[in-house]
């Protein structure tokens, strides 16, 4: 049975109707039209669907839309400010940190949640955290380089 749900995504309000069993990922993609969040495994392993909920990275495939009601959700579509890319997006381009780009949104959101923290993680913490998402194309080297570079760029702003 569908019920009304209000989601706050990238500071926009979305009034949707969804069954209680609808995942946050499906609600974002199908009901809010935000298809930048991808589904790679739907069991919480690959991290392609990572979004930021109240400041923390979350697997949107493991969370129901109703659980996200009243919380501040950030997705990849909200990273850039108009035509200006987020430093992390720019770093991913500059460091060739994506190939097929399917995992990219998940890595961007995971890394954003880390490097925007008031107490940014040290390098080992960063590597540990990044190892929770899967990429099948890049071999990770350039993702790490991009995140490190963006982390520095962000603190210099």
């Amino acid at each position, binding site marked *: 049975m569908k019920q009304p749900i209000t989601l706050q995504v990238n500071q926009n309000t979305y009034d949707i109707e969804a069954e209680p069993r609808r995942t946050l990922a499906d609600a974002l993609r199908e009901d809010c039209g935000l298809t930048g969040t991808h589904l790679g495994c739907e069991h919480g392993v690959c991290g392609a669907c990572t979004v930021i909920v109240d400041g923390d990275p979350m697997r949107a495939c493991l969370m129901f839309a109703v659980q996200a009601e009243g919380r501040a959700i950030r997705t990849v579509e909200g990273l850039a400010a108009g035509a200006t890319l987020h430093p992390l*997006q720019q770093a991913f381009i500059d460091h060739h940190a994506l190939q*097929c780009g399917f995992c990219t949104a998940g890595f961007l959101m995971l890394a954003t949640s880390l490097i925007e923290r008031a107490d940014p993680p040290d390098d080992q913490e960063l590597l540990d955290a990044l*190892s929770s998402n899967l990429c099948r194309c890049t071999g990770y080297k350039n993702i790490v380089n991009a995140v490190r570079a963006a982390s520095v760029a962000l603190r210099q702003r």
Partner: protein
Amino acid sequence: MDARSEASLIESNATVPKTAALRTEWIETAALALAERAARPPAAAVPDTVTPERIREETGTSDPVGRDPIGQSVTRLEDLPLVRGQARFAADLSFPRSLHMRIVRSSVPHGRIASIDASAALALRGVVAVWTHHDVADIPCIPLREGKSAELDPYLQPILADGIVRYVGDPVAAVFATDPYLAEDAAERVIVDIESLPVITEATAPLGEFLPGLPSEPTIVRKGYGDVDAAFAQADLVVELELAIGRHSGVPLETRGAIGRYDASRDVLELHGAAKVPHRNRDALARMLGRSPHSIQLFELHVGGGFGVRGEIYPEDVLVLLAAMRLERPVKWIEDRYESLLATNQSREQLHRVRAAVRADGWVLAMDDEFFHDQGAYVRTHGDRVVDMTAGILPGPYVLPNYRVAGHYRLTNKTPAATYRAPGRFESTFVRERLFDAIAERLGMDPIELRRRNLIQPQQMPFPRGIDTISDTIVFDSGDYPLLLDKTLDALHWEDLKESLRQRRATGETVGAGLAYFVEKSGLGPADGVRISVDFTGAVEVVTGGASVGQGFETVVAQICASTLGVDYRRVRVIHGQTNRIQYGIGAHAGRATVMTGSATHNAALKVRAKALEMAASLLGASADQLSVVDGQVVYASGDVAGAGRTVSLGDIASALAPTAPARGGREPGLSAEGWYETHSMTYPYGVHVAVVKVDRDTGAPRVERFFVGYDVGRAVNPMLVEGQIVGGVAQGLGGALLEEFSYDERGEPLAVTFADYLLPTLADVPAVEVMLTEDAPSPLNPLGIKGAGEAGINGVGAAIAAAIDDAIGQPGAVTRLPVSPARLKALLRRRAS
């Protein structure tokens, strides 16, 4: 001066650095020079002469890249929508009034379907149809891409199982509903009663019947040359091994997806979500569905990784098309991960019994191999090509004067198998290099010295291998194999590295290094064409029949077009994977894209350039040979002639060549041209992989400390992208070497059906891969000297890792099976302890 001679001039002034470190420095210098140039006022503001010489002068003589976009590590054209979340992958495309398809799959590895009861599913509101084989019996099995085969055709897969299921995951029924959640609910209500039949789970099982009247071994691929028996009779030493490669696969992070739509107003059937070989698939689908190819259009969307498995025709692709026509609504199917691990092509599983005849001085007289290839339950689109490639490429970079191989192609009750990145090469390199390590051990010879003695020498190039594979006669086109080995060892300070590992072992660490040498193949022909056109704004469109699987295809083709034509690569739009835009296409596989489509682009761009110069000559009152194209402007090549300084843009030339433009005169309308590239020989890049692995004695867990790839790519169009391909390939190779395995129990039940069981490498499993690209042996077969790079990273990983683990645990020849899981490694350590 034409573009090529300009480019050669630039290149002769700047030798491309051969080591990774130097190359990085070189790229940084170049980037700096380009940035400085960008900061200057635009050249157009200066009214005097603009010539190539002047531009080179302005950019500074220290700019080693000059203006040739080929060879520059420019950023990708593809990236912007991908980092902004604006890409469109298959699941992102929704048509109004779509139905959603869900497949009911066999839970039994082999059995007879007694009954299928869909009444409970059909009773759900919103369920439109449930199909079984009966509903699609008029549709033939999915054919082999390369044409009919009397031996293999009886084993092809119907789009829904025809009375018998042959593997867990075999499609039995298709449910169509108005919502994907509902379709999944309904699929669970379809009751399928299957009577189990005996299973075959090993390719090495005794020969028997796979299906009534059909043997479990439809064919044996045999190749060879020389007199193997005579060589073994003369041998001082015979070395024999049994080696196994585990079943694993590409496993792209985006699962498969297909959206079928039938537009009755135009009588056009559309398949969205095509990949890899859209044109070939269009033709096959046209035959299956009894339609003209003109009335079927395939559209590639963004593709979340291909690796060989995506883009083959699978039952689901045909079902969405058929349903779109018969149910008169768009039909969308998105595979879930569980299905993907059961139903998408698997690969690699082979068992080899190989032996070598060796002389006491290390000269390998002959190799003789018999192997068993586990094809799974159906013959899919590739037929026996993986077996063929394994047999064809096994001798690798060594002379090996006598060779014999027999590849047994065997059906089993497992998921069907086909190609995965570097098909037949990951497997054969593991076998050959393990054999060479074993020979070295038996002779008491350094394994590198053994390899050196057997490598094909540069003066032997081009080297006819003496065998064919996948209908090409193998002739190694160019290469200096000893040079790459030397450069690799130098870059690694090999003797120092070995010494430091020795010292670490002396202090109790379990650490070692291993090396593997391989020859790759790329640029499979026979022909590819592109069409280039310039519009009145000067923007360039390259329409290709190529495909992008995320490898940077658009950028590389744009760089080649930009280099030849004389424009900024960012002004080039590259179209791929759209069968309604161009009639033919080879897609993206077999290391083809850059070699074939790139060469065709070069040829087409030369024609466009010539057209532009001829028209410009008329507009400027010059002769065409006085002119050149720089940054989209036709300019005088030299500032010392009358009229120098006047320019005309490609956009204006395009306007002048419009059908209605008076300036056109009798010229062919349009600033556009078609270009083709044909070849009947593949080109063969080559590489060396070196791994350093440390093993945890308590847990058996291996840790890859270093991985180094030395690779001769002929000519790197974009070194950054080549390196990206290689690093990513290594990561996948590490998966196949250490982690990934589609294991089955003895009843044929798959055991790896989630990402919790089937382990993809994470950041924690992959070191920062080191890459050394060389360009010592450009291909003589294509105008740019290009060789493929997509499979360079994965090819030798299994072999190098195996050798490194042997070295670490001090047991030469210990690793005979991939993947080397912690459990297997622990068993090897225990064997040593006892």
